[in-house]
């Protein structure tokens, strides 16, 4: 008669915690127990997700905590440390669980049981959820739950989470949770093998003792024969990790991932932006023209727009990452790329965050959460913004098209490629340097389980993508929103007085010369084309653009441009470019629109031909052209290397849990960019360009 059966817990159970190895099916079980009623918060002081949710046992409602996956209660990473601390009742922000559910993978019993032995050491009520019993059976190695329960000394409930099997049985069994005896402790005290373990090596004696006991349990509870999960997975890996096919498949998968977040996300992002702009126009339609309307329309709705625009990319990336992770491929991607990245002090798992950063650093930096070692994760976050994101592309296209338009197609293509390569090279160099500093901490070992391949569960994937997107909108979104309003204010205040505007309008009227009328013969299909705008319309538009430019020059942002001109002049930049750079902090592509306003050609991002003309024709006070190819090159390099995206800074703050690293990143990237542009511009001048 198993000794635990008559036991029932004397105290009511309020909190249970799920503890288990990574890949043991813990999150699936959590989803099955709590459904969609989950809460994701942060453990205090660390960027580890705290997932809780309600469930109902026959005895009443309880709270379920899904702990981070851990191989051991001797933690090697922040998330493992949190799991160990919660289980030991050492955290002030989380009560010690009344019952611990050990989530044990039936298809990988031996290693999963090591954590069980450590959980048993806590002397707290324990119950085992035996996951993937169906997989163990299909491998021909079914596990006998009754035998396992007798050996472990606690109830064992087989569960197939995604089918909901065993979930209610598990909840009913919680009251029968037992405190197991520790039969391995006697094993651990006897010498394992005289030649390998001695009394002076308690760690080895302890772990080897546990595994000796585990080996006996496995022998007793698992039907012999069949095939191991490893041998089945190995056959798939023979293809997927093949030196030729493996890399080919990897390249195809990563190209697909990149194209999805780069191209598929694009219309969704414009859709989000347009929807918010439309709502903004709707909300302000009743308001009269003026400051308040501008605040609501451009400040508030513009700010909201600049937050939600990232949502499609984040959601798509995390759906794809969820599929890769759930299927078991994510660990393989790290396995394939580790050599390349470890050379510069990064980790195989840095690959996907860096690749994603070519679309946008924000989802990229968020996806660095899959990297367990704090040092590798921080290094990845710090260098991710060096990857040329999609927001730089309009700037690259404008500058390359305007000032290198006379180059051949190959030359221009090569220049564009060079910009991307420059970003990668800078990231590699900084990551390498960072890994050699003390701030980086000790180098983390690479000990990575390559989990069994399986079909992804859409429910788990969708839920995780939703949680990440929501976390971004709520936590990073608020900072981005506030900073967007601040930037709007900087570009709006102080405003020109009525008298100043009147004086400028008068000066404009006086200087206005109507453009030469277009020759009618130039448009053979005149019948279909739009009628040319009337001279009055042209003049009104020009006046509006002129006043917008004057107002921007008058604003704090415009004055800031003048203020920093002495600082940026050695890079070849004048105050107008300074204003553009301020605008670029909202989002890099805003540089194009801001330059359009500064050059009084309107803020169209679709037709940049007038802006190109204005930039080429602009002159410095001494009559020399403001923009030369050298200045444009300097500006391009600035955009590759400089950290000028407040949204990224907000996300880095959130992901590193403080302002220290985002500020270090902001300052050092801009210093690097400054130095590089200084060398290019001054060097180029010295060489006579």
């Amino acid at each position, binding site marked *: 008669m198993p000794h635990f059966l008559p036991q029932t817990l004397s105290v009511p159970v309020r909190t249970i915690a799920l503890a288990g190895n990574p890949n043991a099916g813990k999150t699936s079980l959590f989803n099955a127990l709590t459904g969609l009623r989950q809460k994701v918060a942060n453990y205090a002081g660390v960027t580890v997700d705290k997932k809780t949710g309600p469930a109902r046992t026959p005895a009443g409602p309880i709270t379920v905590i899904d702990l981070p996956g851990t191989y051991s209660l001797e933690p090697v990473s922040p998330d493992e440390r949190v799991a160990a601390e919660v289980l030991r009742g050492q955290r002030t922000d989380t009560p010690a669980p009344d019952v611990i559910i050990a989530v044990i993978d039936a298809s990988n019993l031996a290693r999963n049981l090591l954590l069980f032995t450590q959980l048993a050491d806590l002397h707290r009520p324990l119950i085992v959820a035996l996951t993937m019993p169906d997989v163990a059976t299909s491998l021909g190695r079914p596990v006998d739950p009754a035998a396992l329960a007798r050996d472990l000394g606690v109830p064992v409930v087989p569960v197939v989470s995604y089918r909901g099997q065993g979930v209610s049985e598990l909840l009913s069994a919680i009251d029968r949770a037992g405190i197991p005896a520790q039969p391995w402790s006697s094993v651990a005290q006897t010498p394992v093998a005289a030649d*390998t373990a001695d009394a002076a090596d308690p*760690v080895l004696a302890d772990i080897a003792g546990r595994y000796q006991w585990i080996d006996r349990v496995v022998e007793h509870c698992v039907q012999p024969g069949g095939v191991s*999960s490893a041998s089945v997975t*190995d056959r798939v890996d023979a293809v997927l990790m093949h030196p030729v096919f493996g890399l080919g498949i990897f390249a195809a998968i990563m190209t697909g991932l990149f194209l999805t977040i780069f191209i598929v996300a694009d219309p969704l992002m414009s859709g989000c932006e347009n929807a918010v702009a439309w709502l903004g126009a709707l909300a302000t339609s009743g308001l009269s023209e003026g400051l308040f309307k501008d605040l609501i329309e451009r400040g508030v709705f513009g700010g909201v727009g600049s937050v939600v625009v990232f949502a499609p990319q984040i959601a798509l990336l995390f759906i794809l990452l969820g599929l890769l992770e759930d299927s078991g491929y994510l660990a393989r991607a790290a*396995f394939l790329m580790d050599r390349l990245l470890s050379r510069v002090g990064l980790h195989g798992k840095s690959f996907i965050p860096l690749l994603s950063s070519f679309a946008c650093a924000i989802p990229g930096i968020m996806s660095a959460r899959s990297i367990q070692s704090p040092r590798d994760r921080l290094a990845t976050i710090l260098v991710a913004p060096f990857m040329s994101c999609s927001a730089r592309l309009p700037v690259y296209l404008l500058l390359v098209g305007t000032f290198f338009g006379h180059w051949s197609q190959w030359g221009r293509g090569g220049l564009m490629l060079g910009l991307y390569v420059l970003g990668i090279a800078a990231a590699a160099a900084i990551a390498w340097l960072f890994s050699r500093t003390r701030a980086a901490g000790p180098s983390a070992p690479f000990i990575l389980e390559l989990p069994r391949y399986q079909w992804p569960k859409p429910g788990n994937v969708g839920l995780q993508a939703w949680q990440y997107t929501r976390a971004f909108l709520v936590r990073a979104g608020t900072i981005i929103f506030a900073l967007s309003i601040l930037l709007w204010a900087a570009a709006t205040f102080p405003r020109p007085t009525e008298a100043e505007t009147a004086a400028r309008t008068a000066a404009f009227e006086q200087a206005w010369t109507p453009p030469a009328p277009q020759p009618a013969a130039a448009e053979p299909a005149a019948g279909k084309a739009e009628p040319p705008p009337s001279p009055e319309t042209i003049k009104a538009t020009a006046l509006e653009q002129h006043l917008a430019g004057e107002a921007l020059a008058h604003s704090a942002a415009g004055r800031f441009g003048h203020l920093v001109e002495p600082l940026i002049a050695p890079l070849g930049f004048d105050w107008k470019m300074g204003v553009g750079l301020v605008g670029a902090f909202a989002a890099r592509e805003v540089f194009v629109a801001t330059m359009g306003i500064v050059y009084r050609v309107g803020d169209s991002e679709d037709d940049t031909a007038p802006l190109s003309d204005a930039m080429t024709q602009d002159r410095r006070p001494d009559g020399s052209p403001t923009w030369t190819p050298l200045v444009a090159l300097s500006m391009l390099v600035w955009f590759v290397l400089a950290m000028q995206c407040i949204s990224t800074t907000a996300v880095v703050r959130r992901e590193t849990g403080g302002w220290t690293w985002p500020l270090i990143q902001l300052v050092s990237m801009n210093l690097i960019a400054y130095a590089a542009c200084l060398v290019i511009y001054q060097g180029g001048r010295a060489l006579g360009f």
Partner: protein
Amino acid sequence: MTTLDVLPLGSSARVTAVGGEPGVRRRLLEMGLVPGTTITALRRAPLGDPLELSVRGYLLSLRIEQAKLVSVE
């Protein structure tokens, strides 16, 4: 007597000892690499490092740097 990083691919060996800095050593032991355990070297990553191993019925990947810490026979 040799170390895991030079174990010929496709062959199996028994773990005899695990070295290294205490934290790394403990984790390697906890992952199941205790003396007496049979371990099979399956393949190297296409770029030469890390290694893919089979141990206790599951697949584990170690960098050569960590594999050097595991003595086998």
